[in-house]
């Protein structure tokens, strides 16, 4: 039946090449239409099973929480300049519109400051009762001297009462904010004492910093600032993701002229998503081009002609259009893994053409007519091509039983894609070859020099000679192969898994590198976990539960701005006490000369308190507090370092008149504003969800305000320490099974894809064996074709270890894939040996050996081109498959001659 169909097809090509080309053209138009509608997703969560909770939750968060996927601008430079830069940049970002679409505003909001207005109304209600108890003194006296007395009392009480106050990250941050306010006050006092004029807003800024902390999103060293641009689109809108990021990048480039001393770059989910997509496309485009050119060159050299290789590439491109069209129908969108399907299919699909061209040119060289040569090619190479192609496609399709969408879609896209190219090779290439041969024949007839036209024998004789030697010395061959396989298997068993997701990401991208800047400057990992809560109470409970875990640095959720009514009730008595005290405290009119000694004394006391705080922080290893203290009282290890309190003390001892004037002016403007602010922020009205400003609501709740987002930041670097990643994920899961985000998604990927990969290898081996059994109708031959494959897989893993590679979530796919790819070599050799019969080892390996060498080289070139990809994950897979294909070729041409030699000797 198969022979009949192949013969019939060969006949059609020889007789009606034009009609065949028309069919191909029609099919290409149809599949091309579908291919044009294929979408791309670069979300890692899209590699997990579609019903996986982590994927569902992640997609839900992206769709419903506008702030979950923001464009982050990281600005670096001197504090004043970066603040100025942010003030100029924010309105410009809001002005950007979608010039490619309906000119809608791309960003709805730019967050780069805390919600000071809300804090001004409800600031005290947001402070924990325990902290209020310790800190309330600070708010009670707005007068300069009284404030300093209260600050000192509070600081002494702070660590007398609560040594743990700066022992956790959150508390350490609180201490830094507190010290920041003091630093600002000291600097302000220094200025006025020196006679410098401070504006109203400067003085209000000092009071605000004391009461609410720094309003800009500044780093600990105050040399970096972040702006979060909240888009009107989500990561699902990939086009807008690109347009939005590019528009803001353009603004940054323009602003560079006015701010040469400021560095600014983009990161966050949107920028990374854009970069991943754009660079993946570019990088795959480049690698595909490299692969096509390299394959073309190789084929031209090997076949010593240029037309046939060009026809092979044309056939391949048509096949690829069909494959992509089918992928659009079968999987709908390409994910991080399936994006590589074009390069993979390129490497595999070209093999079919090579076998056809190789067979056809050989038969033509032997003097057969076009019709005879085509029929023989279809009968002798066609079977092998069909078996090899179908086996590889089935092996890929076996991956579709995988749980993970990454492997499942990879299997479906490449399996069906390979079948599409196989079909194209049987429908398109032969007609092209027939037309070319007819034209050549006509040309020779016209020249009447047909007798001079001699086709050359272009088989690889060296492969034939080597195979004959190996076959004759089969004992040596088998023993040598066995030893080498055992050795490489031993090395392979030592290979380790790389859990570091950053090693897969593209290298050298600003958006990726800026994540490290954020981690270093803000001590905040951008690889956080996200959990959806169904109401505010659940959000609060989850945040509290996560906060208590050792692996968690900080949690963020709506409860930061919305304490429970019970918590609010506990705070009210302290707030009432503050209002009563501050209202009862009269504002002093200026500073009189006899109050200077007291002021001096309190400043000295403040210095001592900060020094002690610094010493405790040093002993306690709290570097951020120590650093902040150094900015105020200097570095004890560097006596020459600046101590701004000592500077103020020296100034306080100077000219009395100027001193009094400056301090009085400060007191007259500072005290009333401070008092007003405290009274205003001391509202005892209960805070309700609807009282929160939109920016806070957007950040922590969904559009309908029915669901709430809890963000959990890990304490350490989750990518450089696999154990920590596991602990963080275990901790997340212990509190709630709804946790998602990169840490849980990536760990799940490692587990699920690892399991899928292992299962797929075994299942693919079984399927391949069954298919070969049907094809060869002999378990011996089926097994014989599989031996080089089995050894090839072991060689591949051993070689990966020897070349310093690790298994990653990307290259683990190479294992099941190589089972499908590597089997072809053995199938072709066993088929040809079966067909040629005993004693034809030379012919088998010189002819089919050439074909499998070429197919292996072309496949290796295609996969090898992935190494040039900016996406390191693609490179990992390419390198593994490069080694795998090479290993399978070597095991085929080394082990099979030995086995054939043994079998021929045994049978004779």
């Amino acid at each position: 039946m198969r022979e009949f169909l192949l013969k019939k097809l060969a006949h059609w090509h020889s007789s009606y090449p034009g009609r065949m080309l028309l069919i191909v053209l029609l099919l290409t138009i149809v599949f091309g239409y579908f291919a044009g509608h294929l979408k791309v997703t670069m979300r890692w969560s899209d590699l997990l099973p579609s019903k996986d909770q982590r994927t569902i939750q992640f997609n839900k968060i992206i769709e419903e929480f506008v702030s979950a996927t923001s464009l982050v601008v990281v600005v670096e430079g001197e504090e004043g300049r970066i603040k100025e830069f942010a003030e100029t940049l924010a309105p410009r970002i809001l002005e950007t519109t979608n010039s490619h679409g309906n000119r809608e505003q791309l960003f709805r909001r730019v967050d780069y400051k805390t919600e000071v207005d809300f804090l001004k109304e409800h600031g005290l209600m947001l402070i924990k009762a325990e902290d209020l108890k310790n800190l309330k003194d600070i708010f009670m006296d707005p007068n300069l001297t009284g404030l300093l007395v209260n600050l000192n009392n509070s600081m002494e009480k702070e660590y007398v009462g609560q040594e743990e106050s700066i022992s956790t990250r959150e508390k350490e941050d609180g201490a830094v904010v507190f010290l920041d306010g003091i630093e600002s006050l000291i600097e302000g006092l220094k200025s006025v004492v020196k006679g410098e004029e401070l504006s109203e807003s400067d003085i209000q800024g000092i009071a605000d910093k004391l009461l609410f902390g720094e309003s800009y999103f500044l780093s600990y060293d105050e040399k970096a600032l972040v702006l979060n641009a909240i888009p009107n689109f989500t990561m699902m809108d990939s086009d807008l993701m690109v347009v939005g990021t590019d528009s803001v990048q353009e603004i940054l480039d323009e602003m560079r002229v006015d701010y040469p001393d400021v560095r600014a770059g983009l990161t966050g989910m949107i920028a990374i998503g854009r970069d991943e997509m754009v660079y993946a496309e570019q990088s795959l485009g480049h690698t595909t081009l490299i692969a096509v050119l390299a394959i073309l060159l190789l084929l031209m050299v090997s076949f010593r002609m240029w037309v046939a290789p060009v026809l092979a590439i044309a056939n391949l491109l048509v096949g690829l259009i069909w494959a992509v069209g089918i992928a659009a129908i079968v999987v709908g969108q390409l994910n991080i893994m399936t994006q590589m399907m074009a390069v993979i299919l390129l490497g595999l699909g070209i093999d079919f053409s090579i076998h056809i061209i190789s067979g056809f040119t050989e038969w033509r060289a032997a003097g057969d007519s076009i019709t005879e040569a085509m029929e023989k090619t279809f009968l002798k190479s066609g079977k092998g091509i069909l078996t090899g192609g179908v086996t590889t496609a089935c092996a890929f399709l076996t991956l579709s039983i995988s749980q993970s969408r990454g492997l499942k879609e990879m299997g479906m896209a490449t399996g069906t894609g390979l079948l599409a190219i196989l079909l194209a090779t049987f429908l398109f290439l032969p007609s092209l070859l027939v037309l070319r041969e007819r034209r050549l024949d006509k040309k020779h007839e016209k020249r009447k020099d047909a007798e001079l036209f001699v086709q050359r024998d272009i088989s690889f004789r060296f492969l034939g000679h080597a195979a004959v030697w190996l076959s004759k010395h089969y004992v040596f061959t088998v023993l040598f192969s066995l030893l080498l396989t055992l050795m490489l298997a031993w090395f392979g068993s030592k290979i380790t898994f790389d859990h570091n997701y950053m090693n897969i990401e593209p290298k050298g991208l600003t958006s990726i590198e800026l994540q490290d800047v954020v981690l270093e400057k803000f001590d905040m990992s951008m690889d956080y976990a996200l959990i959806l809560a169904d109401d505010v109470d659940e959000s609060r409970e989850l945040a509290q539960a996560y906060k208590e875990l050792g692996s968690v640095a900080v949690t963020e959720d709506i409860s930061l701005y919305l304490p429970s009514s019970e918590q609010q009730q506990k705070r009210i008595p302290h707030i009432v006490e503050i209002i009563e005290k501050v209202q009862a405290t009269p504002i002093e009119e200026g500073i009189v000369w006899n109050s200077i000694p007291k002021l001096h004394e309190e400043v000295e006391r403040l210095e001592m308190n900060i020094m002690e705080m610094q010493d405790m922080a040093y002993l306690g290893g709290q570097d951020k507090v120590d650093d902040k203290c150094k900015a105020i009282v200097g570095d004890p290890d560097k006596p020459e370092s600046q101590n701004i309190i000592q500077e103020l003390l020296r100034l306080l001892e100077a000219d009395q008149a100027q001193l009094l004037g400056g301090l009085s002016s400060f007191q007259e403007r500072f005290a009333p504003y401070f008092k007003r602010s405290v009274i205003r922020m001391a509202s005892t009205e209960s805070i309700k969800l609807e009282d929160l400003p939109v920016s806070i609501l957007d950040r922590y709740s969904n559009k309908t305000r029915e669901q709430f987002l809890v963000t959990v930041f890990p304490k350490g670097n989750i990518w450089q320490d696999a154990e920590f990643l596991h602990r963080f994920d275990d901790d997340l899961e212990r509190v709630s099974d709804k946790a998602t985000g990169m840490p849980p998604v990536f760990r799940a990927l490692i587990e699920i894809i690892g399991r899928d990969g292992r299962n797929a290898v075994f299942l693919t081996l079984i399927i391949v064996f069954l298919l070969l059994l049907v094809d060869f109708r002999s378990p011996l031959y089926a097994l014989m074709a599989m031996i080089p494959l089995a050894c090839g897989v072991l060689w591949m893993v051993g070689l990966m270890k020897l070349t310093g590679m690790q298994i990653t979530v990307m290259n683990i796919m190479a294992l099941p894939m190589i089972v499908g790819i590597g089997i072809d070599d053995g199938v072709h050799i066993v088929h040809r040996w079966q067909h040629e019969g005993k004693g034809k080892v030379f012919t088998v390996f010189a002819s089919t050996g050439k074909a499998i060498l070429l197919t292996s080289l072309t496949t290796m070139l295609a996969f090898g081109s992935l190494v040039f990809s900016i996406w390191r994950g693609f490179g990992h897979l390419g390198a593994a498959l490069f080694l795998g294909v090479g290993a399978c070729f070597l095991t085929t041409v080394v082990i099979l001659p030995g086995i054939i030699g043994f079998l021929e000797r045994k049978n004779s």
Partner: protein
Amino acid sequence: MMKQLLTAVLMILFLIMVASGQELTGEDIIQKVNDTMNVDTSHAKAKMTIVTTSGSKRTFVQESWSKNKGEKNLVRYLEPRRVKDQAVLMLNNADDIWMFFPRTQRVRKLATHAKKQKMQGSDFSYEDMGSGDAFIEDYVSKRLEDEKSEGYDCYKLELTRKPESDLSYSRLIIWVIKENFVPIAIDYYDDKDPSRRVKRLVQSDIRVIDDIPTAMKSVMFDLNDNTQTELEMLEVKFNIPLDDNMFTERALKK
């Protein structure tokens, strides 16, 4: 003859039982541990390495004195230069803690509940460092099946916190070296969740100093924070005369 043989067998059995420690209850063992650990007075010089919040290592050398079986403790820092002469005084089994700052020449009292907190950024809490008779007074001991731990044949004990105790750990599992009653390893369990191990102390380099078996090296692992603190004894002396005046707020400044 038969009677003599029986007596001999019984004696041998008794000796085997004694040797294997079968007759010792959990309370007996913990009492011996307490006696071994809480010598009347001690003076030591030690090196402690902590990990700071930015991830770098910081090593301190400190000198310490202890009296009344650990009820009074004084720690004075020697190195690095930045903390030289800074001192911590712990009285009433670390219920009352004072700190002296040489830069300001001031002494501050820390809150009593600070004893549950980490001591100076280390993974040891004040409570871990000076808990006196806590093993006996605050916990109920139960002997578990003997085990080998850190290469030593050990008694394994489970200490469960008494309801009236305010200590930080709901229970402890202690491995005590049979030969010298040194607790070679201790697992500490969460205050609220007795199934959750939060810390592990491993001691090593046991030397006999002044007739007292002493662990020269202790490593405390904080399993929650995934950090560890090493405390290495450089010199130790036991049962030396120490004046009560040493353990006063005024003496801290000296």
